[in-house]
């Protein structure tokens, strides 16, 4: 680590099911250190094969989407991706 101020890097993984070791289907990266700039459509290959790999690489899990019971009559209505996991790393910004 350098001597700059600490900044947050955020990794969002969308997995195949509710298990953290299931495969990555979609992803996003936001880098508060400004060392990298990510944008929509900038990558075809996920940064990790599954969520567990991110933990092994030092990312800290800070939020996971809850499992929500299905409302009567809405069981088959599909909307947003279901298995969203937020990770962070704290890095120096230099």
């Amino acid at each position, binding site marked *: 680590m350098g001597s700059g101020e600490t900044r947050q890097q955020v990794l*969002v993984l*969308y*997995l*195949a*099911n509710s298990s953290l070791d*299931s495969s*990555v*289907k*979609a*992803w*996003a*990266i936001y880098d508060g250190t400004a060392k990298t*700039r*990510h*944008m*929509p*459509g*900038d*990558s*075809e290959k*996920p940064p990790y094969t599954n969520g567990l790999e991110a933990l092994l690489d030092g990312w800290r899990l800070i939020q996971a989407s809850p499992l929500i019971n299905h409302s009567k009559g809405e069981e*088959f*209505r*599909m*909307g*947003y*991706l*279901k*298995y969203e996991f937020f990770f962070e790393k704290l890095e120096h910004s230099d």
Partner: protein
Amino acid sequence: MTEPILLSTKQVAFFAANGFVELPAEVPATINERFLDAIGASDRREDVSQENLDRLSRLGGLMAKSDIPAVPAGTPLFSAFKETTVLGDLVRVPSIRGAIQSLVGANCVLDHHFVHVASGPLVYGNRQQISQHLHQDSTIDPRESAFDIQMFYFPHDVTSEMGGTRFVPGTHLRVVSESAVARYQNMLGQRHIECPAGSVFFMHHGIWHGGGVNRTNLSRFMYKLRLNPTVPQVRLWDTSDLNREDTSQRPIFFVKERYDPEAIASILTRALPWFENDTGRIEYIQRIRFWRKLIGDETFDADYWATRLECEPKLLDS
């Protein structure tokens, strides 16, 4: 007038499952050139003169000065675009007209149209350009039996460096709120349009998409036309290839013969890379329900996904 070339059943089944139909290099070069000329964009040289840079920076207001007509929403398409005009000729290309007729009917109406322009580093210099967030057009659209189409017309070659429209096949049946999906930077199976001049994509209104960054010095143009149906969208295409086998069940799980990949059931139950384990199966059910509407047969099923959920034997009335 030349007869429209309708889509086939398999093409419409592909549309039901993936949310788009692609017609590469379908528009004749003469129409492509006339279109670029009509919007004042026929001169697309890599010209770094100040005059050209000023012109490129004003491309956003291009439609107002162009020969493209402003059309009241809800105008019948073929009244809005008369024959002999460039847009009239574009929508009357037999395969284009046929695809429109197959999906939203011959008497569809124009919702809106627009020329999208993406200029490159010549215009933006060192200012960093960010690709457009993923979104679904319009707003939450809960319709179940009707849908709009959006025609994406690319009048010139689009290379990977030009940042052609990015879209995620198969997202069209998800009910979301416009840019609420913007958080998803990348999804497995996303596609970036690269195509030869004159290519046309017909997209279901619900497909998730966004424009890319143009990294070349040639401005990129895309004409988008949204159309609404005026009739139930049932068997509007050429159904001569709709086979009896396509409406009957086949063995599932334990099978002795490989499935025909071109069978309707195969097309409707083909997983896409971004599918989650459990909701991928619900995608099949959504496609089946969509196909039922399209063929006007509420008993249709593919690989029993819907039938077993509907199997609730009742006691006979005494």
